[in-house]
């Protein structure tokens, strides 16, 4: 459970995810794919308007683990009402120090991950989930397509 205090600034930044979608996992923040989406869900969770979205879900954990950032620390900083730019700078300061090429390669690995490369449990889950949320005839090429098609960006 979050113990972060929610600022008015945070409330003004938080997307109402009962009516809107978080950003695509393809968008970057602080140089990392997924992070922009993670931030949207974090703000909305703090503001109590996350709807069916979960902060620190399996996807978010992929980002936190690679960046070497704790979800709780991230949430506490976001709760101050930090802007996207401030969160991006915070991620750079607190994330694991890496060569830029490592980060770019990690981004590309996730951009081009297909469902067959995911852990068994996620493949099993998606086999039932995709027919429920993806219009018939649409083809999922990469894992991120599931989010972008479901949320009507593709």
């Amino acid at each position: 459970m979050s113990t972060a205090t929610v600022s008015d600034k945070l409330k003004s930044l938080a997307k109402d995810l009962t009516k809107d979608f978080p950003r695509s996992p393809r968008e970057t923040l602080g140089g990392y794919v997924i992070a922009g989406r993670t931030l949207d869900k974090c703000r909305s969770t703090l503001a109590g308007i996350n709807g069916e979205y979960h902060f620190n879900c399996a996807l978010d954990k992929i980002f936190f683990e690679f960046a070497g950032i704790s979800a709780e620390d991230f949430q506490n900083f976001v709760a101050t009402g930090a802007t996207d730019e401030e969160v991006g700078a915070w991620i750079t300061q607190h994330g694991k120090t890496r060569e830029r090429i490592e980060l770019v390669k990690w981004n590309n690995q996730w951009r081009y991950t297909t469902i067959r490369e995911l852990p068994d449990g996620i493949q099993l889950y998606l086999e039932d989930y995709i027919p429920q949320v993806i219009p018939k005839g649409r083809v999922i090429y990469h894992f991120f397509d599931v989010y972008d098609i479901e949320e009507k960006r593709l």
Partner: protein
Amino acid sequence: MLTHVISEKLKDLAPDLTQVPPRSPRETLAGYIIAPRILDKCRAELTGTLGEYWFNKFMDRLFFDFTGIDAQAFQAFVATGATDEEVAEWIGQQAQPRETVEIVKWNNQLRYATLQDLPEDIQLFLDGFVVKLPTHRPVYHVFDIFDLDEGRL
């Protein structure tokens, strides 16, 4: 040689593949991709409306090999005029028992297979075919070939 008695029910169910394409290989039946397409082609072969399609070759063999189902037994059951639901139930009974995750992983292996993943002889065969496809989008995965050729993509 075709020895099955063709039921009226089968005639109603069989697509005329000289006029319409079979279902996409991406569709599933009994949890298996390819299976609805095979079913369409099987029904059409039984009723003589297969056109330029083949039953029990290439991709169909992948399904029969994976499930351990005999193609002739499949065809004999389809010839009774079984509906999609009945064929799905029959596949469930006849297929080699597997954990669901094994079937899902097999589905995903094929869904995301690219031309470079295929045996050389099939790559050679498809090389001539792919250049004749509509050019509004590339072939990313093997299944795109069917979906492009048949107007679904």
